[in-house]
């Protein structure tokens, strides 16, 4: 039996480790800017790429690692391409650790137990077309003190925060798809970011932007982030001179929540079927214009907000009268904060959310004008925006159901009317 065990060890285990050792040795022997191609197979080793070269998988290449990071990239100009990284459950570090500058990471698939990709003091690095799946314990892509990186076309799911950016400026986050995670994009104390065309859905929060200046958030889609009592499409906290433009914010609990926001431009966004469209708290000098509010249970609420400009938004619930023919209504729209103020003091009253009697009470007790968000010239028509996906429903089923209902009830009705 023991002999058999040794035979198995030599036949199966040794080739693998030799295999991997060879890769690291090959990497070490490769001249600068050389290319190392890995053949299909599973490599149980962690690799260190510390000089400029390209490591490329040909076919299906899997690198497995448990304790150490599967791949560590340092130095500059390293390209990592077409590789799958698998972490075992007891992994203690990130699957891929990157420092240095000017690296390219693309077509990398990561099945992470902890963090997917860790950028630590990395700059001008591009992460594109990667797929990261986690166990909700750690972040998908984590940037610490890393600037001017580009993160684009990645799919990230089942992680803590899809893309976590802290103390990292001037990064671009474009066209990523993040779902079923805690926060889609989480920004802390980072300035001049560009967040564009991302789709973040079914997360606890679409994007959490905290402590930022001059960040641009455009053409993103934050959808169906409504599972939790604190769920939001987009949260802005301590955001300054930030521009939020042309995003689709749909079916969230709260579309946009802004607190301590100054000089934020919220322009041309589409707020669709959120429980609360936008909520503002302790914010001033913001510019909110040309947004469309359609099908939200409450469009907007604001308390302790001053000197904000709200103009030319489309509110589907407002009374509209176009006197001049220029497409703007003469009747101002008041977003009454009554309910928000009420529930801030006593959260238990939240149970009256959209209760029929609450609507009556709100009409009776109008808040004073200086506490209300007023759009003095609401738009007559919503701005056009690309169609969001429609829920598919089978008309045949509905048809059948209505037929059963009609036939059943009519026969019972006739039976009831019969004499005797």
């Amino acid at each position, binding site marked *: 039996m023991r002999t058999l065990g040794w035979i198995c060890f030599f036949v199966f285990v040794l080739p693998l480790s030799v295999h991997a050792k060879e890769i690291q040795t090959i990497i070490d022997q490769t001249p600068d800017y050389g290319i190392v191609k890995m053949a299909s197979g599973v490599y149980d080793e962690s690799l260190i790429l510390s000089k400029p070269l390209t490591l490329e998988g040909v076919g299906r290449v899997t690198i497995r690692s448990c304790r150490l990071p599967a791949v560590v990239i340092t130095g500059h100009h390293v390209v990592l391409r077409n590789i799958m990284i698998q972490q075992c459950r007891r992994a203690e570090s990130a699957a891929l650790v990157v420092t240095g500058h000017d690296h390219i990471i693309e077509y990398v698939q990561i099945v992470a137990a902890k963090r997917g990709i860790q950028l630590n003091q990395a700059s001008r690095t591009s992460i594109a077309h990667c797929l990261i799946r986690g166990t909700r314990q750690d972040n998908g892509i984590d940037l610490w003190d890393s600037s001017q990186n580009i993160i684009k076309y990645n799919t990230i799911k089942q992680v803590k925060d899809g893309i976590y950016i802290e103390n990292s400026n001037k990064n671009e986050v474009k066209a990523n798809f993040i779902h079923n995670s805690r926060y889609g994009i989480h920004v802390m104390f980072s300035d001049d970011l560009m967040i564009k065309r991302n789709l973040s859905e079914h997360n606890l929060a679409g994007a959490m932007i905290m402590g930022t200046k001059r960040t641009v958030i455009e053409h993103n889609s934050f959808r169906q982030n409504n599972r939790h*009592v604190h769920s939001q499409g987009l949260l802005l906290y301590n955001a300054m001179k930030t521009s939020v433009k042309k995003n689709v914010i749909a079916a969230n609990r709260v579309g946009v929540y802004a607190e301590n926001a100054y000089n934020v431009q919220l322009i041309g966004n589409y707020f669709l079927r959120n429980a*609360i469209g936008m909520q503002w708290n302790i914010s001033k000098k913001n510019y909110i214009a040309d947004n469309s509010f359609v*099908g939200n249970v409450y469009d907007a609420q604001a308390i302790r907000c001053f000197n904000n400009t709200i103009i030319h938004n489309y509110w589907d619930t407002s009374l509209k009268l176009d006197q001049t023919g220029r497409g703007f209504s003469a009747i101002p729209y008041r977003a009454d904060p009554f309910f928000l103020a009420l529930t801030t003091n006593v959260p*238990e009253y939240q*149970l009256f959310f959209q209760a*029929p*009697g609450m609507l009556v009470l709100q009409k009776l007790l109008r808040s004073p004008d200086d506490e209300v968000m007023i759009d003095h010239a609401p738009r007559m028509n919503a701005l056009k925006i690309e169609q969001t996906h429609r829920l598919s429903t089978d008309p045949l089923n509905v048809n059948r159901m*209505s*037929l059963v209902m009609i036939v059943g009830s009519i026969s019972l009705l006739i039976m*009831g009317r019969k004499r005797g």
Partner: protein
Amino acid sequence: MKTIARLEWRLVMRQHSSYGFILLWVVVLSLLFFIARDTIDFAGYTNMTATTANMMLYLLPLFMLISGSFTIASEIENGQWRLLRTYPLSPAAYIAGKWLGQWFGQMILFTLSFGLSLMFSLSTGVALPMKWIIVLYRFSSALIAFFLMIGLAVGSFVSTRWQALIVSVSIWFLFVMIWPTMLIAVLNVVPYPFIAPLLKSVTLLNPAEVVRVAFVVQMGGSAVFGQVYDHLLGQWQKPFGFILLVYATIYGSAIWLIAAKQLARRRSI
């Protein structure tokens, strides 16, 4: 009880007002479905779902209270009740029969209208999500069941239809229109720690609120009630139907017993 139920069902089917009900429900539901046409992308809790629920909350309780209370009040008024008193019929069985017959009859009318409205909306190209339809139907039938029972209890206390109407409208106004205002007014003078338990327990007295909360939870919008109720509703999410059934049984039985007791007292006078 069976005889009373059958009699009541036949009566509902033959009343001219029943056709009025059908017309009303068809018009209201069709309009709601029609408005919903462009806005139901996600079968979740949206402005449209909230508006539809509120519309049902405005209409159904009022009409069910009136139907329920009138069915007993008119029998008292026209002397039929005196005649019935001579039969060996317990008040509890009488109320139960009335409720069963009325509920069955009203459900037939509502189902017919619901089916017709669905058909209309389909023919105009409105494809509503199945889940939305089912939840709305269940919500409406629960409202009908609860408020018919309360209506019957009202009927057993009053002596004329005029009184029945006044009491019904008052209860409707209390439970639907003025409920939050009243609670907020009362709870504002209560010490803060008592607000939560009081609010929760008082809410249980109002089936309109309970059914509305259940509707929102079923549409997946329980998060709108905030953190205070997250724990509670999160726990309830799974056996929610069962809990509602238990609540309905207890609430319905309590009202039933009150009504039966009142009728028994009247009989002995």
